């Protein structure tokens, strides 16, 4: 037996030690195969990127289909008149979404009306009057922090601080002092949505060409006149998009509204009356829904909410994209 070529281990197992050339050959093959391995990885990496991009599309389609499929029993049983049925009474198996549609529209638009002066003011202040410096930075960060505070904390604060305040106002006005109700919910919502319209307004007002403003100033316009007849007309569609995006936000907001709106399924008679929005009724009744039609009716509300917010958001984003290009 050749001593350099084979070795024997105890137990009569013997194996051949490879020669120098063989080792080198193996190494060379390994070296040559490295690029192939890299190419394999590269292909794998590219494919997984594509797969994840497809996953995003599938995720959205999946969400939509789940909502549609799950609301089929309610669509079948209740038909299209579900949307303007006036009574919602799960005990007697009556389902009409009108109180919630009305509640959602009332709170959202009221919140929008309350918030618009403030969000425009912030946009104009940060975009025109004071674009740099610590004071404008402070305000900008404060506005962003308003968006950061969790909605459940807004709800809790409103329940303890805002509700007694509103109740006092209601006593002065001579309406039934519930405290909770559509008006309170709108005020909380207004605070929560200000940052969205404000930051978009600021971006839009900032990109108004300097030459346009200078032209107006050189004709003798005051600052107010420049804002009114140059900046606002120029940024009209952008500001509108900002309002749309904050509306989309207001429609879908759940927790803060649920905590202060009062949660009754009766059609609200005034803005101080308690009511319910689509999101809040889902949050309140989803885990209690014991019949398939009841559950499915709630999901149909979710489907409506989904479609409305998606459409509003898409329109808003389209406008902004067209505007900034």
């Amino acid at each position, binding site marked *: 037996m050749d001593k350099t070529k084979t070795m024997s281990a105890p137990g009569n197992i013997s194996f051949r030690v490879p020669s120098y050339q063989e080792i080198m050959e193996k190494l060379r093959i390994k070296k040559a195969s490295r690029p192939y391995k890299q190419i394999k990885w590269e292909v794998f990496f590219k494919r997984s990127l594509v797969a*994840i991009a497809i996953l995003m599309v599938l995720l959205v389609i999946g969400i939509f289909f789940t*909502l549609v499929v799950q609301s089929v029993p309610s669509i079948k049983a209740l038909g299209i008149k579900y949307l303007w049925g006036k009574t919602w009474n799960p005990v007697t198996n009556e389902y009409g979404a009108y109180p919630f549609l009305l509640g959602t529209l009332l709170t959202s638009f009221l919140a929008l009306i309350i918030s618009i002066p*403030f969000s425009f003011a912030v946009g104009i*202040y940060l975009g025109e009057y004071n674009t740099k410096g610590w004071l404008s930075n402070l305000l900008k960060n404060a506005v962003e922090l308003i968006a*950061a505070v*969790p909605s459940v904390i807004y709800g*809790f604060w409103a329940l303890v601080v805002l509700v007694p305040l509103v109740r006092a106002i209601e006593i002065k006005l001579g309406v039934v002092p519930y405290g909770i109700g559509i008006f309170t919910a709108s005020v909380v919502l207004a605070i929560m949505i200000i940052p969205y319209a404000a930051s978009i307004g600021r971006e839009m007002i900032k990109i108004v060409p300097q030459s346009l403003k200078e032209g107006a100033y050189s004709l003798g316009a*005051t600052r*107010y006149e420049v804002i009114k007849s140059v900046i606002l007309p120029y940024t009209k569609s952008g500001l509108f998009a900002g309002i749309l995006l904050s509306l989309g936000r207001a*429609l879908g907001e759940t927790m803060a509204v649920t905590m202060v709106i009062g949660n009754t399924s009766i059609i609200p008679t005034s803005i101080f009356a308690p009511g319910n929005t689509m999101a809040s009724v889902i949050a309140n009744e989803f885990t209690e829904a014991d019949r398939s039609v009841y559950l499915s009716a709630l999901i149909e509300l979710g489907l409506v909410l989904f479609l409305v917010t998606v459409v509003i958001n898409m329109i808003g984003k389209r406008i902004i994209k067209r505007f900034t290009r």
Partner: protein
Amino acid sequence: MIKNPRIQYRKTKSTGFQFLIYLLAFIITLPLIAIIVYIFREGVSNINWNFLTNVPKPVGEIGGGIANALLGSVLIVLTASVIAIPIGIMCGIYLSENTTGRLSYWSRLAVDILQGIPSIVIGIVIYFWLVKPIGTFSAVSGSVALSIMMLPIIIRSTEETLKLIPFSLKEAGLALGLPYHRVILKVIVPCGVSGILSGVMLSVARIAGETAPLLFTAFGNPYLSANLGKPMQSLPLLIFNYATSPYEDWHNLAWGASLILLIWVLLLNILTKLTTKKWNVQL
């Protein structure tokens, strides 16, 4: 000085408008200050060691804490991050690499739609995807719901950051013979890491306070639990349940929990701001 009444009038109007704008712009900081001050005032007295290490006691008993919610929140958010961060960054890479093309158009549209979906709707959908087939509310289904909410933020920030990185860097890497995935992972991504990181932190801050998707998924649990397959309490859920209860003790617990949640979220936001300032990312 021109003493023309018309010009005088216009100037006064302009000053008045400016004053109005200043006033309205700064009024909106009042609710923010009011909320922060109020929560600090109500919350600070409740926070002590027992508060952080005990589970809630039944109504009527003094003491009790929010250990279950703290642990639950951390676990749920961590799991959500583990799911969302790799997927979000990968998708962001794809979108920044492919600016045109049919798939990137649809994918970008999908991300836009995801961003606009109300959180409660995501809760409903995950209920049917995970809770109903498994047969029990579980923390992991809450994490999945939250991760879907994190995705658009991470994807957007990754995409925008990577778009800013000079093309020459990528070319240099490719010219050295580096394969594509190494150019991306070893050159492009490290260059944009602070932008991506700020997006991740922002998304964590966003979901840490989310309640609506957890209502039908993580559900809440009055006991200390670290089992991801079982219902779990989280801070926002605890605040919601206890704030709407009529008991004073539970309100106090909720104030303490609110303060901790608020500090958590605000700190993350401030950290994000510092990193974005350094990197100059647009989110």
